[in-house]
Structures are given as C-alpha cells and as structure tokens.
C-alpha cells in the first residue's frame, strides 16, 4: 500500500505537467481545434460537445472508482464489509439508465451533426461555389479547375470566403483528401466520385495531405493549400503557365512517382475527370515488381513533370 501511495505521489505531478503542456500546444498551427472555415468549426464544435457530454459521466465514474478502491482496501478497518451486497434492483436500474440517457443525448448530437455536416451538403452562400476536381495518383494529387481551364499537381490555391465544391476520385488506389484546418476529410476512390464542400475564411497556407495509406510514396502526398483573397486568386489563375493536360500528360501522371514538386497545366481536357472516374482510362500503373516478383521498381524520383 505504501508503495502505491509513494508511486502515486510521483506520477501525479507528471500528469499535471503533461496536461499543462497539452493545452496550449493543442492550439498550435495545424490543429483541428483551430479551424479556419465553417465546416472545420462545425466538426470541432460537435466534437467538443460530445466530449463534454461524456466527461459529465466519465469524471464522476473515475472518481468513484478510485474512491471505492481506496476506501474498501482490506487494511481499512473503518470500511464495512458487506459480502452479501451482490444485487440491488435500484442500482441496476440506475446503472442501465445512466449510459442509456447519455447515449440518447449523444444520439441527438450524432443525428443532427451527421446531417448538417454531411460533406455532400453545399455550404449555404450567395456566391457560386468554385468547382475543383481532385484526382489522387501514385503518389501525388491533381487538381483541375474546370472554369479556369487550369490544373495543378500537389498544389491547391483557393479563394478566401468563397465556397469550394470538390469532386474527388482516384486514378489508382484509395486515398483521403484532408486539410485539417478546413475540416472534413473524404475518400478518393477509383471508379467513384466523392463530393466535399469546404470554405476557407482566412488567408494563409495550411497543411494538406492524403490521410489514407496508399503505398511507398504516401508520406509525400502533400498539397499544402494556400488560401488567397479572391482578386489574387483570379490573378493566379490567369497567370498559370504549363503544358496541356491531355491524355498524353495523363499517361505520365499514371506512372508512380514520389515527392513530386508542384507544377501546373494550362488547358485541360474537360472530359478528363469523368473519364477517370468512370474508368474509361486505364488505372495507375503500379510498380513493376516486388520481392518475389520481378525485381526492380520503376519510380521516378522527385519528378513526373513533363
């Protein structure tokens, strides 16, 4: 017992230090608790609501656990030993109803949150959303701006304050499109089109990456989005230079490549995205062989630009 008490005294301060370090650091740069758009704010709010609802029963339960265990320790002569106290209808009733009521409450939060924050639901706004088509390849992202007739690789530039409507698919394996500070992520899947509605309310450069493991080049599938004022966005779109994004260029993208530096295309085949999504083009090529297959991989290091 003494041993426990002694260790407890040592462990407790450690936790306090840890907890104190935790709070400010959670509000750091790319934290999901520092959202810059309505979707991220909504997600984080629901998360905090759910957390508070649960803490309301978790904290008393923790205290009761430690309290009971402490008080009823065998060496405590003041505690009353009641070996026959093994059932009480009243307690069972309470024991089933506390979690049930909590889940009722939480169920409401879940129901409402799932509907209002469904990624397919457009963000209410007077402005017409900016259309962006995103395609994941091994191992880079392609963003097509159909209205601007430009496309970028591993680079996402968006106007501040205007709703963004993404259509997302994959030309090879599964990936997830995720910008923590903008909110909701969604899968990029071959043969399917996911939709995602986001809005960036603050200019800045944010972390953006694939949040689903997709193979050897996965850690470098970064596209850190930049949010800029509308006028600057228009300037940028007008100024983009690059080759034509046609079937030929697509053929290059379908080859595996890692850590691709951002670059752009000017002039986009308007049917390209739908052709990929509908599997009218062959899927990403994959490696040539692994161990126990033909040896040697055909990965373009740091490249892929035409």
């Amino acid at each position, binding site marked *: *017992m003494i041993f426990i008490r002694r260790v407890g005294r040592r*462990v407790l301060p450690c936790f306090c230090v840890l907890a104190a370090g935790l709070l400010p*650091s*959670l509000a750091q740069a*790319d*934290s*999901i608790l520092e959202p810059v758009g309505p979707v991220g704010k*909504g*997600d984080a709010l629901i*998360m905090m609501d759910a957390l508070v609802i*649960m803490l309301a029963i*978790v904290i008393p*339960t923790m205290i009761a*656990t430690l309290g*009971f*265990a402490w008080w*009823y*320790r*065998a060496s405590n002569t003041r505690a009353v*030993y*009641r*070996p026959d106290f*093994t059932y009480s209808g009243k*307690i069972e009733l309470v*024991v*089933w109803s506390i*979690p049930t009521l909590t*889940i009722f409450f939480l*169920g409401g939060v*879940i129901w409402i*949150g799932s*509907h209002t*924050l*469904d990624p397919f639901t457009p963000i209410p706004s007077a402005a017409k959303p900016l259309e962006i088509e995103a395609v994941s390849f091994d191992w880079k992202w392609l963003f097509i701006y159909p209205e601007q007739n430009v496309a970028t690789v591993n680079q996402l530039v968006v106007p501040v304050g205007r709703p963004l409507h993404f259509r997302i698919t994959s030309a*090879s394996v*599964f990936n997830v499109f995720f910008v*923590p500070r903008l909110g909701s*992520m969604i899968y990029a*899947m*071959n*043969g*399917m089109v996911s939709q995602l509605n986001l809005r960036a309310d603050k200019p800045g450069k944010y*972390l953006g990456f694939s949040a*689903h*493991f997709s*193979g*050897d*080049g996965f*850690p470098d599938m970064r596209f850190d989005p930049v949010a800029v004022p509308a006028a600057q966005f228009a300037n940028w779109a007008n100024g983009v230079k690059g080759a034509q994004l046609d079937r030929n260029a697509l053929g290059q993208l379908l080859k595996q490549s890692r850590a691709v530096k951002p670059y752009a295309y000017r002039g986009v085949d308007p049917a390209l995205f739908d052709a990929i999504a509908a*599997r009218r083009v*062959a*899927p*990403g090529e994959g*490696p*040539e*062989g692994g*161990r*126990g*297959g*033909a040896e040697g991989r055909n990965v373009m290091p740091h490249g892929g630009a035409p």
Partner: protein
Amino acid sequence: MLGKLSWSAIPFDQPIPLIAGAVVVLLMLGALALVLAKGWMPYLWKEWITSVDHKRLGIMYVLLGLLMLLRGFIDAIMMRAQQAVAYHAQGYLPPEHYNQVFSAHGTIMVLFAAMPLVIGLMNFVVPLQLGVRDVAFPTLNSVSFWLTATGALLVNISLVVGEFARTGWLPYPPLSELRYSPGVGVDYYLWAVQISGIGTLLTGINFVTTILKIRAPGMTYMRMPMFSWTALASCLLILAAFPVLTATLAMLTLDRYLGFHFFTNEAGGNAMMFMNLIWAWGHPEVYILVLPAFGIYSEVISTFSGKPLFGYRSMVAATLFICVVSFMTWLHHFFTMGAGGDVNAAFGISTSIIAVGTGVKIYNWLFTMYGGRIRFTTPMLWSMGFLTTFITGGLTGVLLAVPPADFILHNSMFLVAHFHHVIVAGVVFALLAGIEFWWPKAFGYRLHEGWGKATFWFSIVGFYVTFMPMYVVGILGMTRRLQHYDVAEWHWWLQISSVGVLILIVAAGCQVAQLLVSYIRREELKDITGDPWNGRTLEWVTTSPPPVYNFAVLPQVIDTEYYWELKQRAFEQARLSEEPKYEAIEMPRNSPTGFVCAFFATIIGFALIWHIWWLMIVGLIGAYATFVVFAWRDVPEYMIPADEVAQQDRARRAARQHILNTGEVAWQ
C-alpha cells in the same frame, strides 16, 4: 521447380531483417540442439507436442502469444524509433521496410499475440470452471493450436524469405491487388491469416460445443462463472465472424492468383465491398478479444474484493447485448467515404449504443468493490489500471463514433492512440492479470509479487507516456502510417512517445524477470492447497497443477459460486465433505494429428505463397492422409484406474484438511 523463389527473395541488401532473422534462427537452432542434447525430445513429444490436454494446449497457446507479443513489441520499438528521427529526414527505415513493420506489427499483435493469449486462457480455464475433464473435441483442439502456430511461423518466415505485406494490418484493395503489390508480402498475409483463421474457427466450434453441451452436473447457465460466459460470447462471435474473414480473404486471393475482379480497379471490381466485408469481421474481432478480457476482470475483481460479482445477471445480459450489437456497427470504420447523413447517423448511434453495455459492466465492477475487502495483489492492480484507463479510452472511442468528429479524426494518430488505449489497457492488461491469476493453478507456484507490481507500475506509466502524445499529434493533424514528416510541432511529441516506449521496455524486462525469479524461487512460492487467492470458482477446488482428469469426481453444482459455499461450510464445520466414491476415468489419448496437420499446412502455405505447385500438391496429399488416418483410427481411449484417482485425491484432501486443522490460511 521453385516457383517464384530464388536467391533474390533473401533481403541481402537490408541488414536489419537479415540480422534479426539470423538471430531468431540461431536461437531456434540453439534451443533445438539443447533439447536434443539433453534428451528432452521424447518428453516434449509425448507430454506437449502430441498432447490433447486442454491445460497443456492452453499453456502452449499462452507461450506462443507471449513470444509473438515480444515480436510485435520489437516492431513497435522500431516504429517509435523511426518516427522519433524521421523529421525532415528519411530515418533509418526506408518506406518499403517501414510499411512492412507496421503491417506486421498490427497483424501479429491482433492475430498472433492477443488471439492466442485469449484462446490460451480460455483453453486452460473454461473446462476447469465448468467442472469437466476436457473440451468437447480434444484432438481438434490440438489441431487448432498447431494451425495457429503455422500462421505465426509463416509471418515470421516472411522476415527473411521474401517480404511481408506493406498494406497495413488489413490489406485494403486496390493497394493489395497484384497491380499495386506484386510481391509475395500480401500472399504471406493471406495464407498465414487463412490457416490460423481455420484454427480459430475450430476453436470457436469446440468451445461453443463444450460450453453448451458439457458442464458439470447442476452447472446451469445462470451458475456459470463470468469468464465462461464471456468465453461463450466470444466463441459465438468467432463462429459468426471468422467465416466472413475467410470468404473475404478468399476473394482477394482469387483476384491475386486467378485473375478474378472482386476488388480490382478493372472489370467492374469494387474495393469498397472489401471494406464492408473485412470490417464485418473486424469489428466483432475486437469484441472477441475484449469480452474474455472483461471476463478475466470480473473474476479478478470479485475474488480480490472478497465478494461475488455484483449484478451477475446484468453482466450476462450486457455481454450478450455487446455480442449482438457488435455486428451492427462496422460502417464506423469508413464514415468518411461519404455514405450520407442517414447512414452515418445510424451507424454512429449503433456504435455508441455498445458503450451502454460496457458502461453497465464498469458500474457493476464498481459495486463489486463497494462493500468489499480489497486486496491489491498484482492481478488486482492490473484491474484497477484497466478500470481507470479504459473509461477514457472508451470515451475517445465514442468520440470517433460521432461522424462529424470522425471527419477530422479518421485515420489520424488520435485513432491510433484510441485503439491502443482500449486494446492495451483493456486486453493486454487483462491477459497479464489472467496469467498472473491462473499461473499458480497451471504450474503450482505463485508469481513473485514485487516484480509483478514493478511490471504494473512501469507499464501504466509507460502506457500513458507512450500513447497520450499520440492523441496530441492526432489533434495536430498527424495521420497514421507516416514513414517521415516535416511538421515541427509533431516532432517533440513523437519523441516523448518514444521515451514512453523506453519505460515500456523496462516493464517488459520486469515481466521477464518476474517469470525467472518466480521459477527460481518456486519452492517458497509453492501453492500447496490449490486455492492460493481464496478463490470462488471451481478451478480452485482441484490441485495446482490439476491432474490430467481435472477432477477426481465431477462436482455436483447446486448453487452459483458453489465452491465458495462449499469452502464456507467446511470452515464452519471444521471438516471436509464426505469422501466420494472413486471410479476409473476415461481420458483421450495423445495424438500427433495436430502437429502433423500443421506441418503439412506450413508446406501448403509456403508453396502457395511462392507458387511451387508440386509442393502444394504434396502438402495437400499429406494433410488429407493425416485426416484419413485419424478418422479411421480404431484405438480406445485410455483408462485411469480408480485406485490411482483415489490416491491422488486423498493427497489433495489431506492438504485441505491441514488448513482446516491448523486454521492457518496463507491467502494472498
């Protein structure tokens, strides 16, 4: 001749797996040499390898599980070391290798460490708790064990011959399809998991039959100890879920071997179907692990509080409730695939409903302690560590079940922290508590308390220091399975997490020390009475270790906690119950069937992985022949004469009588 197998399969260019593999091979050869030199082989063969005794099989399962836990832990150390240094750098593991490490870690921990440990304890304890002599199908039980060992062996062979899967512990297509994973890694995964999965399914059949059909006379369902109830629930889940796993992996196998298109990107394949199917197994799988863990906590908390389990019926109801609901939640693993508000909300709610069952259990454990006289032995410390830790782990789980929260937490390090929170504090703590608790029953001596407590304290501190930082980096946006990264805010949290692993290494050292010290001091830690903890269930009636036949005479159960009642009566009247009439006992004969089966299964698996078709046919013929020989066997089981039984049981009674006479009780 050798299919795809050639010298290029050995990773001569990668020193780490090569050296690790060489060390393992040397250790194994050394052990074998020792066994042969000392002439232990006949003993091992007769008493262990061909044994069909549920207790021996249970012990071998636990040994396998502990070894694999160590292997998985080494993988974990490698990952933590990599992420501690791979900031703006490639670290020491290239992606090809890092990706194998986390895939192997997850696969091994869940399927070859946690599962064998859970099934091992079930094997050892359930027949004893039910007051019977063995499981329904003893030889099948041995087949199950050896098939599980085959799977573990194949995974470990992949360390040096070829490669392991680089697709994560669940091989999601299209990444796991031939186009994107042309190597043998995924094939190793598929055959290892398929072969051990058959073993697990057979275990499920065996234990459901045992628990439903053979219990001691008078042992009605509502008199079954809680651990046996949870074992039943877990095995029912195995029966329902493992065929789904087998079928799903079979489909992926057809894609890879015969050019089918279930999940491919071409010809109308649909990979999303795989996610649905694999999680239809995967979610129940976590309850297959955690329900028996809950059973262990129930036994431990009740024993060391000196009280029956509070709200026993409620606990049974909550177990079955979890059992059923766990099949209705699989979609929470991919809320972010955009299934729409209605579907996401429905699965979010069904998932949080499971928490009701778990909450009820927590409160009942609380009230078991209420009014108790709690002895803080090592198993009880693990249970306290569980109670206080699991509540918050469950909280983060329910948080992930809220779809909008999952939209920003899915696949993040927050998720990794969550599942380790529940699986380490829920399952691993329980298994260590269970081993500690039933060790005297298995080996006849207790484990050293001091080293046990040290293990506990280092583990719990190490656990928090390792996994809490993962929650933080998850909130800071970090996704899982990253071989390198360049975000400064993550770096130092990941380093703290690595310090936590150092503490866990100390804990693992203490655990090994505990086993060694206890073995050396086994005489002074000896359990003479067979009831070292003042136990309440039938396994404590018999001697430690129990005779092959478990009970000289099957107990006639007339009550819940029958043994406890019996013991109290003996104390009151200061005498034992009347000596029973002893009869000869029929016990199953040992059989090499399981071992031989597994030998051929290993050959089949290896041949399939490397496309060595003739070898596969040899293996199949061998396995079939083994089956036929066993099925046609015509030898009677063997009898243990009544005299021998009587003699052994009188010795047991004498030890108990001694306690009554002297009134001295050395209960921990």
